[in-house]
């Protein structure tokens, strides 16, 4: 299978006056299509900086980042915006839903910036919300939903644009264990349906659901190993939630 993500000697240096901080120093790996990978590391290890670059929110100061074969390091701001809009689905720890909009309108957001007509947008967003199990709650505002439900809206929003890559930053970090488990199952189901998923986390239990764990320390790759089949959590109950591609 082809690589969705390939990074070569990726670096990111922050400069504040005379002080230079190397947040990411020479990271290389590739992730093939349909993979489910965890990026782990203690705080300060550079995992958020790495994720921002993988998500095209930030540009590397050195090295290359190929997303589906394109070197995105040299793209303009608006070209990166278009890439974020069409090829990447973000899921945030704090959901980042707009409080003034209801669930449906939040999910429509990436489609709005794609110039999709309102009728088509409603249709797509309604369908995706049904896929994540929120078909009944489309007109609810974020504050009327539980944390788990809000994260489902966040996932639906990431899925709405049919991206190649789902990028989740501590997706279960703000949730209790039961809701966290549900969200993880949703990710597993999405992955089983063929999505490439990258989860940034510091939670071993979450990482153990993935096929592969990339561990970072001080901005460099400490280890990059597949998760042993026996230590991997069972993915058996995935079929219970149908995920329409």
């Amino acid at each position, binding site marked *: 299978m082809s690589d969705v993500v390939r990074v070569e000697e990726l670096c990111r240096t922050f400069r504040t006056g005379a002080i230079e901080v190397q947040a990411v120093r020479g990271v290389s790996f590739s992730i093939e299509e349909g993979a489910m990978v965890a990026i782990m590391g203690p705080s300060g290890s550079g995992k958020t900086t790495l994720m921002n670059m993988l998500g095209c929110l*930030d540009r590397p100061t050195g090295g290359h980042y190929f997303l589906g074969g394109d070197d995105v390091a040299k793209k303009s701001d608006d070209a990166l915006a278009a890439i*974020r*809009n*069409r090829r990447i689905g973000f899921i945030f720890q704090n959901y980042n839903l707009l409080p*003034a909009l209801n669930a449906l309108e939040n999910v429509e*957001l990436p489609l709005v*910036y794609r110039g999709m007509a309102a009728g088509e947008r409603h249709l797509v967003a309604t369908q995706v919300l049904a896929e994540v199990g929120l078909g009944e709650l489309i007109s609810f505002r974020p504050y009327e939903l539980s944390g788990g439900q809000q994260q489902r809206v966040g996932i639906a929003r990431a899925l709405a644009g049919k991206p190649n890559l789902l990028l989740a930053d501590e997706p279960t970090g703000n949730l209790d264990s039961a809701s966290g488990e549900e969200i993880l199952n949703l990710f597993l189901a999405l992955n089983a349906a063929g999505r490439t998923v990258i989860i940034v986390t510091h939670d071993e239990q979450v990482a153990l659901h993935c096929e592969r764990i990339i561990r970072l320390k001080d901005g460099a790759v400490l280890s990059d190993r597949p998760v042993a089949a026996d230590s991997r959590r069972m993915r058996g109950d995935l079929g219970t939630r149908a995920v329409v591609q």
Partner: protein
Amino acid sequence: MRVVESLRMAWRALRGNRMRAALTMLGIIIGVAAVIALITAGQAATSSVTSSIQALGSNLISVSPVRTSGTVLYPQDASWLLQVVPQIKADAPLIEASVTAAYQSSSWSTVVIGTTPAALTIEGRTLAAGRFISSQDVSASRNVAVLGQTVAQNLFPARNPLRQTISVNGNPFTVIGVLQATGGAFGANADNVIIVPINAAEWVAGTTELTGIEAEARSAAIAPLAVAQITAVLNHRFASTNAATVISQDQILSTLSTITGTLTLMLGGIAGISLLVGGVGIMNIMLVTVSERTREIGLRKAMGASRRAILTQFLIESSLLSLAGGMIGVLVGVSLSLLLTHLLGAGSVPISAVLLALGFSLVVGIVFGIWPAANASRLDPVQALYQS
């Protein structure tokens, strides 16, 4: 992204902050209303002044001796001027004096004008009652008086003034006529006068020197020539370069309309400043809005909003704010203007002022919205998204 989408977002954002939106609009409302109302007032003043000057009779030329040049004119000089200047068809000498007129217990401060019968047609006035002074009145030096409307109403509020005797600075005058009102403007009340035969005025004023001569040109086209000719003969006679101030009604009109035009411009300008201040208010609130919504902007960018989409969103929001304020301002301004024109009895609401104010308010919204909107569009998505 579509403009309709931006409009919808802007509308939601404004509705979410109704009080703030209303207060921000207030600056624009006041500015636009003030521009419209003040321009209307200025134009009403112009038309009122113009019509009262025009009421003085067409082709009127006024001659005032310049005393510092040694020019002194006497009543007989009026007939001399008529002979030496062929471009005028009639003229009348004037002696003016401020006086107190009294009838029984009421008294009134006014101006006595001593002149000859020709003044009636030169000034283009008509009588409301009685007759004007005649040549016999002048030659016999009779103490007869023709009252302007204001004087008649104040001395004789409840009776016919004709054939009554009034006292003008202690001299008895018999009222023979009352003039039709011409309408005054801004203190220059052409109806607050008493017209008497010229020789009678000499007594009241205590001098035979003329205040001036008024002449009527043969036609409006020839008036400038008449002005030049009068100036020339007076300068020649008094061996001066500045013997008299000679101005035609046209010149008075154009001078006055320049003054009132400047006044209108100034009033509009002052009102425009308040519109500008309203614009600064919009900029202020848009900057606050952008910094409050930094996270939202970051998220929208993460979802693929281009710089332009963010710029458009905030620009439309500020434009909507100022345009809505502008429209309400037009309603308020037009209502005020209608009230004003009704009270002044002159002028109309100028459409150009309405369009100008509305256009200006939109420009203000865009101009003062650009900086905050550009700030928003330039935000770095990472910094915006992780700002707490």
